């Protein structure tokens, strides 16, 4: 595998260098990893500021959803902010104006993101690589202008004061800890779904498409359908993350639909490790931490973020988790 990958390095796709390794390493390890991760996450709000951890979880889910596309289907979307922010608006509006309970609000937000995903996908999926990136970017820009001009989004003010409500009529989300565990549950659900998708036959076909699309076609797979399905799944989960964020912060604003947000999720995924399941989580945690840390210093935030981007692309293309996995002794050949 190593020799082969070196030989084909010149023509490899974006993520060939970051092939999926972690979860294949054996069920026992995986289970252990899950237990450790869950324990940390469950205890985190006692050691850390809960709102901060919730933010990390929302962005982590967003980055995982994005990673499903770039890491496992080889498609770089530069327009994921449209799904994230679009769902945030829909959820916020449903909960605040229509008075729906949070679970229905989230469902509607996710559904809206899925719908947007179908629209975007239908147009963009016919192209690959850079073309795909630019088309998604332009389409998300249209969503941005709509968010700016439609009445229900509140323009520059956004939708403010969104009530958190009572989940399933039982859990009162105005309690910080209840809210936290609800967000954690959403995250675990989304993460498990991605896990399942990647390890299903569907995920295998995606990987085949990523490595060699003509070959997948010649094997009889209708690759466009698979890619579209992956795209819609990714969009929906990004929407789920956006809707959750709207509930956590009780607001939806233009920030979430701006193209800079699409860039940010690319950075999180790249930094953590494209094509690894845990990478985006680590990347999201680091970027969110960095942003909140830099907010209190006089360093210009965009310059630091840009510099990290450049260093990642030039030196750590596998990302943090990717590099760790690659350096571990006895990795699977």
């Amino acid at each position: 595998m190593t020799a082969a990958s070196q030989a084909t390095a010149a023509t490899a796709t974006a993520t060939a260098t970051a092939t999926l390794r972690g979860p294949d390493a054996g069920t026992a390890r995986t289970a252990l990893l899950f237990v450790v991760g869950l324990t940390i996450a469950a205890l985190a709000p006692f050691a850390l500021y809960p709102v901060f951890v919730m933010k990390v979880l929302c962005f982590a889910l967003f980055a995982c959803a994005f990673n499903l596309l770039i890491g496992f289907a080889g498609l770089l979307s530069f327009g994921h902010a449209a799904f994230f922010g679009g769902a945030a608006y829909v959820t916020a509006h449903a909960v605040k104006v229509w008075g729906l309970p949070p679970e229905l609000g989230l469902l509607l937000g996710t559904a809206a993101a899925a719908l947007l995903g179908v629209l975007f996908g239908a147009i963009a999926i016919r192209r690959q690589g850079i073309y795909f990136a630019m088309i998604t970017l332009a389409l998300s820009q249209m969503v941005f202008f709509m968010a700016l001009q439609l009445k229900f989004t509140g323009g520059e003010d956004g939708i403010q004061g969104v009530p958190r409500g009572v989940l399933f009529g039982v859990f009162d989300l105005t309690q910080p800890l209840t809210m936290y565990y609800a967000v954690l549950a959403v995250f675990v659900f989304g993460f498990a779904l991605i896990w399942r998708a990647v390890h299903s036959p569907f995920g295998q076909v995606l990987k085949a498409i990523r490595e060699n699309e003509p070959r997948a076609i010649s094997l009889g797979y209708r690759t466009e359908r698979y890619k579209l399905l992956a795209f819609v799944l990714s969009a929906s989960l990004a929407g789920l993350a956006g809707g959750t964020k709207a509930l956590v912060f009780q607001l939806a604003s233009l920030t979430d639909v701006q193209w800079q947000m699409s860039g940010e999720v690319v950075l999180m995924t790249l930094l953590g490790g494209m094509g690894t399941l845990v990478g985006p989580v680590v990347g999201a945690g680091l970027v969110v931490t960095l942003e909140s840390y830099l907010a209190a210093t006089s360093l210009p935030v965009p310059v630091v973020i840009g510099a990290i981007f450049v260093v990642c692309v030039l030196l750590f293309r596998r990302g943090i988790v990717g590099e760790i996995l690659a350096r571990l002794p006895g990795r699977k050949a």
Partner: protein
Amino acid sequence: MFDLLGVSPQVLFGQLLLGLINGSFYALLSLGLAVIFGMLNVINFAHGALYMVGAFVAWLLLNYLGLGYWWALFLAPTVVGLVGMALEKTMLSRLYKLDHLYGLLLTFGLALILEGAFRHQYGVSGQPYPIPDLLKGGQNLGFMFLPNYRGWVVAASLIVCFGTWFAIERTRLGAYLRAATENPVLVQAFGINVPVMVSLTYAFGVALAGLAGVLAAPIYQVSPLMGSNLIIIVFAVVVIGGMGSILGAIVTGLGLGLMEGLTKVVYPEASNIVVFVVMAIVLLIKPAGLFGRER
């Protein structure tokens, strides 16, 4: 016929002319992107930032060295070109063997750094840049008042655009360039230094952005953010024209400028979206763009 749009012909001509002026900016910027993409297969996300740098260099030349517009017209693109060459040599060139997406990501990071640095240094309100004395004033065309400077912008960018097109499609140098995109190894075998040629191409592409920046300085505020919104529209222009197509970039740039001008009269609220709507339609019908070929 014009009354169908509910607009008098005078107004319509005026708006179309203004559309052409904007279109020439789009054309100049998308031309640079197309040249770079055609040769390096890199989508240069830093193009908007380098356009901004061009305008800033002009402003710095004026304020610190007292060199006016006409100097800036030559010096600023040169400076931007040199910056571009340095970026290409030190960073971009290391990514050619990888997926093209890495080039996009790298230049995205560079754009953030450049814009952030200028923002940090000069603030965001922008700086004034005067119209050169020679081009002050304007002409009354009957249907509208045309500032001389705007006329100059159209003329200058058309000359540069079609000059570039001619150089690439109709000269020996251009033939080498085109050959090198198809088969760099073979061209290298003919004794042409392909890496240097690639560097120069990138430098030339971004110099066009720098030139557009200087042309824009007297019209818009010289501000660190001037490129970041424009770049997305220019991307759409390049996608519509067919990526890498020189003629496609020029014609689409001008055409979309006109179309945008028309929208500003008929339904001004949509004038920022019209480009993206056109893009979606074009892609549904012709996925490779108007002038592109499937690869």
